[in-house]
């Protein structure tokens, strides 16, 4: 074996990956060549010293810190992503488009006559109710414009309670024959809770704020 060949085998010799024949030839060459013997010593020293280098180890809290990072990441994943301003703005045309599409589906769809019929009936029912009760439906009870007439002019903010006539008579409020009493108004002339104590709450059927 020549020096060049021997030198190329030295690294493999460190790894112990030479064939039996190569090993024998290299050993024979090293016996007679001091220069290659020196190189072989260097290689084996480097290999040996590298194996003896101080190992760096992780710190004791490594797993805890990792767990904390994973928890943070999982919390971020669980949190719903809020759309940015741009995404919100960009979404409007699409929403308008969707609404227009849905509307056109109704207006030009096969059930458009039925829908128009139902809408007309609802409108007619609302007009009829308003006409017969002379007011609006509030909480299942109706009240009329008498409320406004009874309320004193200076009572800008007042609450009216609808009570039945018997309860009003028992409470001694004859003028409440219309079934309306006034309480908790802003006027300094009349004390708050003027009527409230005498009319049990359960007898009040509706509250109107005006």
């Amino acid at each position, binding site marked *: 074996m020549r020096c060049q060949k021997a030198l190329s085998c030295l690294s493999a010799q460190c790894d112990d990956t030479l064939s039996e024949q190569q090993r024998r030839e290299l050993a024979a060459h090293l016996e007679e060549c001091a220069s290659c013997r*020196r190189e072989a010593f260097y290689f084996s020293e480097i290999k040996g010293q590298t194996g003896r280098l101080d190992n760096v180890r992780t710190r004791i809290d490594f797993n805890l810190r*990792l767990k904390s990072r*994973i928890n943070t990441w999982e919390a971020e994943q669980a949190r719903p992503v809020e759309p940015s301003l741009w995404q919100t703005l960009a979404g409007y045309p699409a929403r308008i488009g969707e609404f227009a599409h849905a509307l056109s589906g109704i207006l030009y769809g096969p059930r458009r006559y039925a829908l128009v019929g139902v809408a007309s009936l609802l409108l007619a029912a609302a007009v009829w109710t308003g006409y017969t009760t002379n007011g609006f439906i509030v909480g299942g009870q109706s009240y009329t414009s008498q409320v406004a007439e009874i309320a004193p002019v200076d009572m800008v903010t007042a609450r009216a309670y609808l009570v039945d006539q018997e309860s009003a008579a028992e409470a001694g409020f004859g003028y409440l024959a219309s079934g309306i009493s006034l309480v908790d108004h802003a006027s300094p002339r009349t004390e708050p809770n003027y009527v409230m104590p005498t009319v049990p709450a359960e007898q009040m059927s509706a509250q109107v704020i005006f």
Partner: protein
Amino acid sequence: METQKQIDHDLMRRIQRDDFTAFDKLVDRYKDRLVNVLFRMLNDRNEAEDLVQDTFLRVYKHRQDYDFTYCLSTWIYTIALNLAKNELRRKKKFKFFSIFDMQENGVELKDNKPGPQSLKMVLDKAIAKLPTKYKTAFVLRDVDQMSYDEVAQVLGVPLGTVKSRVNRARAILKDELRPKLEERRALSKGSLVPVRTM
């Protein structure tokens, strides 16, 4: 007897079912080896540990994407080394001045004590100075004691290339360490007179 690969795959299957105990076991199996390899690559313990954390975080995030036809250790090492390479690239791009650099460039580090410890320190520095591709192959093979096949898989290069890179790294180290090695050789021969190098 269960092989390392089987153990890893069992752990990974449990991790895929959100078993955090299995993940802890996997971390314990690889964390010290990884931090040692990355420390040799980056020469900074804190950075190495941070990157090992990043590696495991990625493993956890992408646990459902793991392909069981490959070795888990190969996958983990590939992630870790890619992170290390990115870090080295970033460092190269934004060169910082550190006290360590100043010591290396200007002031000689106190290291006059002969003997094995001194050689170790020189070897540490010489490994740090190796070009990245040689250093990676050398560290995996000689520091982490991986087989050449495993190194080839992790680096994604042919076996011959790995052998050549390791060989090249050893040759560079040999040249760098020649004076120290010569001292050692002379001591081992029982002579205090250093032998003249060629």
